[in-house]
Structures are given as C-alpha cells and as structure tokens.
C-alpha cells in the first residue's frame, strides 16, 4: 500500500531445489509489495542437494526471513559448526581446523601470526589453532554461541550442518506459507520477445503458460534459461579445480561423539567430507573423474565411511566455473545455474544467498531492468566467485603431496595470477593481500597457509625485538584464557539437547 509501484513485478523462479526455494522465500518475504512470486518445479527432476554444511552468513538469512533458529534446526536435523577440519591436505598425517574465528589478536599494529612465527622460530609456539577459541572448542566437541561483546568469548562465529534434503522442503513450506505460488510441471519451451530477446513466459508440459517480468533460473546445472536458452557463456575452471564428481553416502553415527565441525580429508584423487547431523553422518568423496572412475570412488567411500551405510553411494556430477554473466536480459541465475564451486569450504549455499541478497538490493522495482543494475549485479557476483575460487585452489596448490597423479597435477599447475601474487607475497614476507569485500579474510588465509605447512620465508621484525620469554608468557596467558573459556562450555550434544528441550517447552 505504497505509492511507489503500480503493479507488483511478476517473478518466476524455475527450479525447486535449495536455491529455488531460498530465492522464492527471500523475495516474497523481503519484497512483499513489489513482487509476486511463482515457482515452477517438477517432482520428476531430482535435487542435487550438495551443501550440507554452511557458513555463518546463513544465520543472517534465516533471521532476516523471520525464521526461528531452533525451529529451523529441528526441522533440518541441524548441528552447530565452528569450522572445518582439513586432514592430509598439506601433507599426509597433518591436519588443521579452519575456524569461523580469529587467531590471537593484533598487537601494536602487527598481526598475531607474525608473533606466532617468531615463537615458532624460538621453539616456544603451540600449534596455531591453540590460540583460537573456535578451534579449541571444536577440538573439544564443545559449543556455546559467541558472546555479544568485545571479550575473548566473542572471537568466533558459527554456522549449521544440516540435511540439505530437508532444508529445501523447509524453505518450500515457509515460502508457500508466505504466498509463493507453486506450479508443478516441466518446462517444454520458453517464449521470448522477438525484439528484446527477453523471456516472456515458460510453457509447461500440460500447456500452461507461466508469464513473468523477471525469471530466476534455479534449474541447477541444466541452467535451462541462462545457459540453454540465452547461451550465457560458461567460464570453465576445471583446469584449476579438477574435481567434477562426488560419491555421496549417508551413514549412521559410528560413535557418541558429535563434532561441531565438518571434516575434509584429502584422498588420492580429491577429498572426502564427513558432516555430522543430529541423526546421521553425511559422507562423500569429491573426486576428479580424470583421475578416478565412479565405481572406484564408490568403493573408496564405502571403505572409508565409519558408520553403517544408510544407502548406496550416489554419484553427483558437476563442473567448476561460472557463467560469464549471471544476469542476462531478464534472467538471473542463482545457485548452480550461475556457477559452481566444489563444497570444499561449504560455499554453495552462501553463493546462492549472496546472489539473492544482491538481487534484492538491485531489484527492478517497476519490472523495467536498468542495465546499470544488471552490470552492478554481475560485477558483484563475479567478484565473489573469483575470490572464493582462488581460496579453494590454494587448498590444493599449497601442498607437498606427491603420492598420486591428482596431487602432482594440482601441486604443479599454473594458478590464476591473482592467487600466484597472493601466495608470493605471503611466501616472501608473511603478508596477506587485504580486501574487505568478498568472503574469506586474513584469518582464513592464514589458517590454510600455516595449516598446510606453507610458511613464509620471513616475518615482520617487530615480534623479534622484544623479550622472547615475555612473548611466550603472553601467548601462554592467551592459551590459558582460551582453555578456561572452553572448559566452561557445554558439550555440543548437550547444548543441542538443551536447545531442543527449550523449544519443546516453548511450543
């Protein structure tokens, strides 16, 4: 009931997977007077459902939509996540946790990692993760939400590990409850404006025409509108990120322990995930089909999974890369239809969420698309994808592994210039190229560099100028404070039970 728009923009979302229902629910909830949202999905088309682990940003999304965290966690059998435990990436037998949090604190304008490198030189350093509250809590299987102040207890974030096959339906139910109109059917043809080339309507197998002003392509890898219909070029990144398959297999929990973190273990032709949910353990082997056959991958995941298999391994196929333009004409790709980066850092749902957020900011209010908004959207989406891409490549390239053809390839390949320069700056001087936009900041880069044994040749001189015993003492004080903090945290499972009890009392 505002005077700003004449009639709502007709938004048609194609695809009922995670990205599709997140988009439909997001637009319907946040632009109720500007947009009228319809979603086309077919029960005959499967859902990829990759991305059981998430990043802390998902909390903002859920909150913004007005969804109760506890209800959401119950519905998706979610657990808490403090980071990812990377095993055998830099070298077989070594591991590190990339936390949602920081290591130590900057002192006199010098980053903590320089002090750590100096301590390490004098043989007085504990592993870097010991100076991170998130890493220490994760290793102890403990969890508590961070404090909302400036104290040590505020130096981390958290995300969820949930059942992606339940998240989509949860968002669907939510979307339907706030007025998204759902159409069951398959698209058989696309009506386009002869002059502008814009999409006018989707024609379904039963002859229905779903007309719209704006079409959101969430059709997954098929990219029915953006790729097939509009032919937006695909930038292929397989040469940097050769993994293009996953063999996924759920298992029962093998032990009572419930890890508040995801585990990524490097394998001869890729890596495998273990994602602890409330009721089961998600497992999968992400591999390069150029280096391993699908049957062998299925065998490998069967052999590696620790609990009782709950299903046969299922093969997922994907291609790393992104569309040259995620918004073309009046079609916007969200999720796999616009790009794909393997789930090594659990970025899939983030990348969909990021596109939805920018789309809402740049939404064409009267249905008329301003090319400046489209360009801005594409600029932002490209920046996000490219930065995540470089960070993922780092995990493969910063390694000494030479035990398989796959690792030999990724260790010796030529990486993008943008990454080569970052790595060289770190190698020479222990410094991080600084950006405030995009996804992964200093602490993440340091976690991977140090965790994978890619140490700089030199660090800042300032930590070496003080008294080494004093420096060691300060580091020990930090460690003791972290230990006290973690000792006071409840166990991950206990905290989940307490939350469940709170929820059942509330309802």
């Amino acid at each position: 009931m505002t005077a700003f728009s004449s009639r709502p923009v007709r938004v048609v979302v194609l695809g009922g997977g995670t990205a599709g229902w997140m988009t439909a629910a997001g637009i319907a909830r946040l632009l109720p007077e500007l947009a009228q949202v319809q979603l086309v999905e077919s029960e005959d088309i499967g859902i990829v459902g990759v991305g059981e682990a998430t990043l802390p940003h998902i909390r903002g999304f859920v909150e913004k939509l007005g969804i109760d965290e506890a209800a959401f966690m119950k519905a998706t059998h979610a657990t808490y996540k403090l980071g990812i435990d990377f095993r055998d990436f830099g070298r077989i037998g070594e591991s590190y946790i990339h936390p949602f949090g920081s290591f130590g604190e900057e002192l006199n304008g010098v980053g903590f990692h320089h002090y750590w490198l100096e301590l390490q030189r004098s043989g007085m350093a504990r592993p870097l993760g010991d100076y991170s509250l998130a890493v220490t809590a994760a290793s102890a299987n403990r969890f508590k939400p961070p404090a909302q102040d400036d104290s040590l207890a505020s130096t981390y974030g958290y995300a969820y590990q949930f059942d992606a096959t339940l998240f989509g339906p949860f968002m669907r139910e939510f979307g339907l409850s706030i007025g998204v109109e759902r159409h069951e059917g398959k698209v058989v043809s696309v009506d386009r404006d002869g002059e502008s080339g814009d999409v006018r309507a989707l024609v379904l197998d039963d002859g229905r025409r779903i007309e719209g002003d704006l079409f959101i392509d969430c059709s997954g890898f098929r990219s029915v509108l953006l790729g097939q219909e509009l032919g937006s070029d695909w930038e292929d990144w397989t040469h940097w990120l050769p993994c293009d398959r996953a063999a996924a297999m759920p298992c029962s929990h093998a032990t009572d322990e419930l890890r508040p973190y995801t585990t990524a273990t490097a394998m001869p032709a890729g890596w495998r995930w273990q994602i602890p949910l409330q009721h089961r353990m998600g497992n999968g082997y992400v591999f390069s089909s150029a280096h391993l056959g699908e049957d062998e991958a299925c065998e490998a995941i069967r052999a590696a999974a620790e609990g009782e298999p709950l299903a046969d391994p299922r093969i997922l196929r994907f291609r790393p890369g992104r569309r040259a333009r995620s918004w073309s004409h009046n079609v916007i790709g969200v999720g796999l239809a616009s790009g794909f980066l393997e789930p090594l850092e659990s970025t899939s749902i983030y990348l969909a969420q990021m596109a939805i957020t920018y789309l809402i900011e740049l939404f064409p209010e009267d249905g008329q698309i301003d090319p400046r908004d489209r360009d801005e959207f594409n600029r932002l989406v490209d920046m996000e994808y490219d930065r995540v891409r470089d960070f993922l490549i780092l995990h493969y390239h910063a390694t000494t592994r030479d035990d398989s053809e796959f690792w030999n390839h990724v260790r010796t390949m030529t990486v993008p210039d943008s990454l080569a320069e970052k790595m060289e700056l770190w190698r020479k001087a222990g410094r991080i190229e600084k950006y405030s936009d995009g996804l992964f900041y200093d602490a993440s880069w340091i976690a991977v560099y140090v965790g994978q044994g890619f140490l700089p040749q030199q660090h800042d001189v300032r930590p070496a100028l003080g008294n080494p015993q004093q420096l060691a003492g300060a580091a020990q004080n930090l460690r003791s404070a972290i230990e006290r903090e973690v000792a006071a945290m409840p166990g991950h499972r206990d905290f989940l039970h307490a939350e469940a009890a709170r929820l059942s009392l509330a309802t």
Partner: protein
Amino acid sequence: MSTPREPLRRVVIVGAGQLGVLAAIAFRQALPVCQTVLVGQKPSPASFADWSPTALPFTNKLHDRLGIEERDIVLKAGGSYQLVTRYEGWSGNGEAGTVSFGETLDPSLKTAFARDWGGYRQDPLGMRPAGSLSQVLADAGRFAPPPPDEETPISQIDYALRWNPAAYRSLLIERAKALDVQYVEGRVEHVSLLDTEGSGGIRAITIAGQGEIEADLFVDCSGPEATLLASMPEFASVGWSASLPTRTVYTGQIGTPVIALDDRISLGPLGWLTQTAGRDGLYTTLGVGEGVERDAALGALGMQATAAITISPGRAAQPWIGNVAAIGDAAARFEPVGPYHLDLAHRQLDLLLEMLPGREIHPLERAEYNRRSSLMMEGVREVLAMHFASAGARRVLGDMALPGRISDVIDQFQRRGRIPFREESPLLAQEQFALLVALGFKPGLPPAAHHRDEREEERARAQFAAASNAALQFAPPYKQWLVSVLQPAAKT
C-alpha cells in the same frame, strides 16, 4: 622456518611539519633498534596535511597507538572537539545538511531517515529530524569526551579533534625528542641514487650545510614538491584536473576564537569556503576555480589572506618507489574541502607501518602498498568529486568528469539509497550517505524498504528519541565542560 626480517638500520623522514614529526614518532616506536632521523624545515603553506587544524576520527586511533594523549592536545595544543560538519549552498536549492561520523544508526531508523531525507514524507514544519546522536548533541551544544572504560549514553559517538597546528607540532616534537628521534634542520640539496637506473631508490641525501645522510628507507613528507619521490627516475603522476576544479586556495587570517561542536563547508558564488572552529581562532579557507580574480576571491574570503596557493591536482602513480615512500601531500595534491589531507596521510602512514619492510624490500610488498595507498588516494578523489557533482557546485565551478565509480555510486544512491562498498574509502557507507544528502542528492528507497514495517520504524524512532534524551542528560554543556578542564591546567 620463517625468520624475522633484518630490521631497517636507519629511516630518514624528510619534511618536519606535523605529519613528518608524527611519522618519525611512529617509526621510532615501531622499531626502537632503528635510528630515526627527521630532516627538514617547517613546510610551505601548500602542504595542507602539515597545516591542517583537524583530521578525522581515524587519527584519534593512531594517536592512541602512538601514545599521544588527547588530554595533552586539549591542554597544550588548543585541542577541541568536532561532532558534525554542516554543509550549506551545495544543493543549489537552499537546503543544508549535516554529516556526523561513524556508522551507528539502527537499520530501520536509516530506512525511516531515508524516507524523511528523500522528501517522501513532508513534515508539516518542513523540518528534518536529526540524523544522529552527534547532531542532537551539536545542536544542543552539549558534549564531553566519554570516559573510555565505561558504557555511557554517548560512548558510541565518534568525533574528530581540532588543534592549533603550531602548538600540536610542538607537542609532537616534545614527544619525538623524548623518544630520541634525531633532527637535522635544512633543505635537501642533493639526492644520490643507489644505482644508475635508480630502481633501488636512494643511497643518501645531502642536507645544505650538514653533509650526507644514508638510510635504508626514506619517507617523503616534504609536501607537494615531493622532494625525494619526484627525484626518482620512475616517478610519474596521475592528473586529476579533469575531475577536481579548484585551482587556487586562499587561507584566511585566523579569526576570533570559536567554541563549537560543528564546522562548516559551504559553497558560495565564487567557490567553496571551509570554516573550522578553533579555540585559538576560526580557520577559514576559500577555494576557487580557474579565472577568478584575486580581489574577487579576497572579497569572498571576507578577510585578509595569509597565502594564495595554486593547485594542480593529481597523485603519484607509484607512491612507493625503491626505498622511497611518499605520504600526504607528497603523494597526492588536491583541494582542502574537509580534513582529507591529514586523514589520508595518517592512513598512509598506518599502512606503511603495517607493511613495515626490512632492509630488503620485496617488490610484491611494495606493490601491495602501492595498490592500497592508491585506492586510498582515489577514494579521496571520489569523495571530493561527490561535492563537485552537486547541483550548486556544477553551477559555480562547471561540470567536471566523474572519476572511478562515482557516477554509479550517485546513480545507485538516487535510485536505491544504496552505497556500493568501496575498498579504502575515507568515509563509511553511512557517512557517504549523509554527505550525499547534505550535498543535495535525494536518496532513493532500497527495494526492501518499500515494505514498510511501521511498528519496527516506530520502535526505532522511539529508541532513538530515548537515546537522544539520555545523551542530552548525560553530556554537559560543552563550553562549560571545556572551561572546567582548562581552568585547573591554567593554574598549574
């Protein structure tokens, strides 16, 4: 195994204005094993960072880190507090605006303000509500710096400090002496390069009547002449004349003292005029474009001028070449519409300390410094360009080219109330938002704000009103507080 860098043995800072002295303090503190030599004389009036009587809130943080006490600035250097800047004349339609520091508004309130500021809803009295707690306090003339270790109704308020530049410089010199910074007075007569191509930088400089000084790192704080950087064979400039119109700046005689929480940046028929309130007097600066006669300019300044400075705006393409890093006016020349010179110089100094090299300087760390330092400089140019894109400025100074993504920023702001993120900008998004409003641009509404949650906005308004009342009750009358602080000091 990583080893620490071999430390710099000697760093030479050329330029002994308030920027050079602070840089010397910063290097001396960061690297006590390194000899720090400050070379030069008082800079020319054209070195704006060196004569700026104020900066932005970032400087307070830098001061804290360097052990320069705010209290000392207040007691010994004529220090005073600035909460807001008033903009007048820029909109071209008589509307004025106020900009405060920080990013503290509740998002719902921001939306509500966007509606009010954008003129979507007219208040029957034609009054806009105050945009921030700072403005509420400045309007009421109430403020005292909040106690640092206590949560108070005004703890969220960000402020800038003002001072008397000569007294502030003396205060810094006192501190530099205590830290054993060495001082050599004199002009740089000769620069000896490390090798014939000069890519390695400077081996030594010769000071008139003092002999030669070698160093591992040279920091150029010499002002717009860029004594050291400009003597490097690879030195090159990026011209900004197409986007920044000011060609002559007149600095006025210091007027009568003013105790106020606000400063003014206004646009008149000939150019822009800034007025900075100082306890020692009002600082006035006028900037005009090409072709304005001196007499006409002096008329607009309204007082005698102490200097007329010709400006040819631009920046160093590479502010760090070899072992020479330039900061402040030696790196970028532009008009002083607001205290961006000293803020930029301090942020560049901070970056140089963050990237503190060893005796051996890696080309990639220099490249990273140059990337970020250039982003900082271009960020300042873009903020200045916002001023000159206003309707009033275009009428007075003509249409200028819009640098970087400013055209997109203004477009996004006007259609969507959106400020795209920009790395190393001198202003936070909310500050840019308020500045654009103050310059007469009307913000559009973000799509998500079309759906109006009246209850949420009402809650945010009520909360802001309560916070305003609490702040007004907590903060004493500013003048009274200042007198109370200064009186005991005067006795001792």
